[in-house]
């Protein structure tokens, strides 16, 4: 709140036209007071705490709804995906031409294309039975976990912010800044093995945390909405990193004119977990640790208790002596560090040969999907991240083995989000009862006064 003396310049005045309208009830006693609703009361009394808007409520429901909806959404999306695979398959198209003469052909073709595609998806993401040895057969699973690593970290960052009532869309920017800091330390310094990695990791986490912290601080201090700020910070980060990548002496590899950094030094790279034949790296262990940490914060710590209180009801939190503004800042710092972990694991684990401004690989946005699918709970996000990792790993083999366009996987991912965002649709399809109807309890309208003039 900048200056409460100037309501006309702030949002407060425009948001509540009813509060300062002088309403004289004609013909009634002088003491008759006018009334507005509670929401207006809360706004008037607590301008610095954002009232839960309808937008907020919707997000909140999407982000923290029922786990069964998540599972059903995945199933539904896979079914719709199957239909699309069948429709785009050439054999199905050929067979359908004479569908009425020999419908069996079409059915067989549909079955072959769909089962082939999903088998390829499975073999590309979990276990490949066509390989001779277990070591080679299990490789897809390790790929899945490698892809899942930044997705889980990013999902935790977005999910944690959700739980505090904030929508962190700035994953891309936070990842880019973290990757740049970690990468710069990774290729630009000579430090002993282990220490180098640690310093780069911490540097990256701090970078991501501070970048997200800007949004948190602006929200706390000025009330700027974090959605706008984080989106804009994405652009700032992208162009900042792009510029540094083109500028010799900053991030650009010496002697190169490409906007790309040099390779990371051996001492800074995350060690491979299962030996050099697999890509799975130490970052996965860090992400498991991060999941445990976030679980502890949210369910066991006093900080997480305050986080959740602020996320559920900022007014009550404030009345209970919780400093709502600092919670926003802390939450964004932690969320940024988690997205920073995603960025760091990209540069120190996955792409160690130097990175470009595309290092985030869309993970900052996929993280939102992962957080939604995981219902913003740490272990839900962990599972959702692995699922999306499997889609990424399996999507390529699906295309390679069956000629199914990789875009189908993206469509399936998008459908999952769509179904999660529309729980009534999923409930109708599966004939589930509507939980809100049973539990609905009318809230008493409490009258609120007006200021005496």
């Amino acid at each position, binding site marked *: *709140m900048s200056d*409460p*003396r100037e*309501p006309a310049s702030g949002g*407060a*005045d425009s948001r*509540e*036209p*009813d*509060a*300062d*309208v002088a*309403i004289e*009830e*004609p*013909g009634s*006693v*002088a*003491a*008759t*007071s*006018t*009334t507005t609703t*509670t929401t207006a*009361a*809360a706004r*008037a*009394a607590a301008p*610095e705490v954002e009232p839960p808007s309808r937008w907020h409520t919707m997000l909140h429901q999407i982000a923290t709804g029922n786990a069964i909806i998540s599972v059903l959404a995945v199933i539904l999306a896979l079914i719709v995906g199957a239909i699309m695979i069948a429709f785009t398959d050439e054999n199905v198209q050929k067979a359908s031409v004479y569908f009425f003469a020999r419908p069996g052909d079409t059915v067989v073709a549909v079955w072959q294309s769909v089962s082939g595609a999903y088998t390829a998806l499975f073999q590309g993401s979990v276990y490949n039975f066509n390989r001779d040895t277990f070591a080679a057969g299990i490789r897809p699973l390790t790929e899945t976990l490698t892809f899942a690593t930044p997705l889980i970290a990013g999902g935790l960052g977005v999910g944690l912010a959700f739980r505090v009532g904030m929508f962190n869309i700035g994953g891309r920017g936070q990842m880019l800044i973290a990757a740049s800091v970690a990468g710069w330390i990774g290729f630009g310094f000579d430090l002993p093995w282990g220490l180098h990695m640690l310093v780069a990791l911490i540097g990256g986490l701090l970078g991501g945390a501070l970048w997200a912290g800007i949004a948190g601080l602006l929200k706390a201090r000025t009330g700027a909405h974090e959605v706008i700020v984080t989106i804009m910070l994405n652009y700032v980060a992208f162009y900042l990193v792009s510029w540094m990548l083109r500028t010799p002496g900053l991030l650009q590899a010496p002697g190169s004119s490409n906007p790309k950094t040099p390779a990371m030094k051996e001492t800074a790279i995350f060690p491979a977990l299962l030996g050099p034949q697999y890509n799975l790296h130490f970052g996965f262990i860090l992400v498991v640790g991060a999941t445990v940490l976030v679980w502890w914060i949210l369910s*066991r*710590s*006093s*900080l997480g*208790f*305050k986080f*959740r*209180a602020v996320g*559920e*009801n900022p*007014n*009550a*939190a*404030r*009345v*209970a*002596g*919780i*400093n709502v503004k600092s919670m926003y800042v802390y939450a964004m710092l932690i969320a940024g560090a988690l997205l920073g972990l995603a960025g760091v694991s990209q540069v120190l684990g996955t792409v160690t040969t130097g990175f470009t401004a595309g290092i985030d690989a869309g993970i900052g946005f996929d993280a939102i999907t992962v957080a939604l699918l995981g219902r913003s709970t740490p272990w839900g996000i962990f599972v959702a991240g692995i699922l999306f990792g499997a889609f990424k790993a399996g999507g390529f083999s699906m295309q390679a083995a069956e000629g199914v366009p990789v875009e189908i996987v993206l469509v399936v991912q998008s459908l999952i989000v769509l179904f999660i965002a529309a729980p009534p649709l999923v409930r109708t399809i599966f004939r589930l009862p509507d939980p809100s109807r049973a*539990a609905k*309890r*009318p809230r*008493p*309208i*409490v*009258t*609120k*006064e007006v*200021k*005496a*003039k």
Partner: protein
Amino acid sequence: MKLELRGITKRFGSLVANDHIDLTVEAGEIHCLLGENGAGKSTLMNVLYGLYQADEGEVLLDDEVQHFAGPGDAMAAGIGMVHQHFMLIPVFTVAENVMLGHESTKAGGILDLASARAKVREISDRFGFDVDPDALVDDLPVGVQQRVEIIKALSRDARVLVFDEPTAVLTPQETDELMGIMRQLKESGTSIVFITHKLREVREVADRITVIRLGKVVGEASPTASNAELASLMVGRAVELTVHKDEPNLGEAALVVEGLTVIDPIGQLVVNDVSFTVRRGEILAVAGVQGNGQTELTEALLGLQPRITGSIAIDGIELSSASPRRILDAGVGFVPEDRNEDGLVGEFTITENLMLDRSNGAPFVRAGNIQRAALEQFAREKVSEFDVRTQGIDSKVRQLSGGNQQKVVLARELSRDLRLLVAAQPTRGVDVGSIEFIHKRIVETRDSGVPVVVVSTELDEVAALADRIMVMYRGRIVGIVPGDTPREVLGLMMAGEVPTEGAAA
């Protein structure tokens, strides 16, 4: 029109919300349906209005059996309903709202607003409602919005009007005006069903009273019955309506407020140069019509108002510029006016809500970790001590009734070492049985030597609790008078008139 309900039964799964309810409302009669929250009053009226289908029983209008498939049928048959939550579109004018749903059009599909306006004016004049058909509903006070609802029902020729808890949203004055309107409607031959749990209103307007408890009719009463009789019918046991309290055992001055002025965020002076003192072991009740600065006064005491001047001191410690955290730590207990908004986190469990304002250290937090065992034990103790009716300490607070929610707030606040208790509207939206309990606890707190500030717009509550009464009007103190000051004097003071026989007490 005569309305008769015969043997209405409505079940939701295993829960019988209405169990063979019989009810007859004669033409031109105000029939009160009295019962606690959750007794089944609203279910019964929803059956009448066609929103629910009864499992058994029938609805008769003028001795003819009716079958309502939905509210449309009920309206067509002459039943109108004034909901507790208004069904109005705020950005529409009064006339537009009244015509909504049965708009008449002129040639070319143009809305016939003129006839709607005329209709609003005609009904408004007939009953002296004084409602401008062209006013935006959003700009109208709640009491007038309610009249728009009444006009809406009357414009559809309703002969039976159902008022569902109509006074819950009204100020005392607006309530009195509504009573007048109801009497007028009755004289014009309309039958009225008046649903409420407020005893005084019932006795004021009702011709007949039917009391419902746990889905059954438990008795009929005449308006001459005493409050105690009605309350015991409603609750099913004898209820003490007046709290038994001894003479206060006054200690030294504990809360000293000097020249307190509060300017609200939109720049209005809401508390104007207020000074008062509360002594240990004393209850100071702040009375006044809603909206005369009481809310802001309590918020200022808690450090929730950013722009205050003047001094607030508790036991000599200046707290006017302290944060809510520091004020809570200094031993101030706070029961906020709107518990859903400010007092509880609905999605949290009872246990979590009980530690809401103690999330910083002992006894529930050690080294950043929540001490779950200690917390759960504490929650179990408090749930039984404060008689919170719940399935368990892990129930979400959202699922509790108003009275039980308030008990959770009270349990949390009273289980700290208090040096001041501030309770704003402690029994608003709370059932009769819980009111008794809450009042007792507040008096016990006083008797343990804690100064108490109770803010209430209900004169009954003020009279029951106060050792002294401070009346506020337009942000100022009209006067501070003894607790046994007659109602009429208080009423005048609440309208801003300074009592003649001296304001000091």
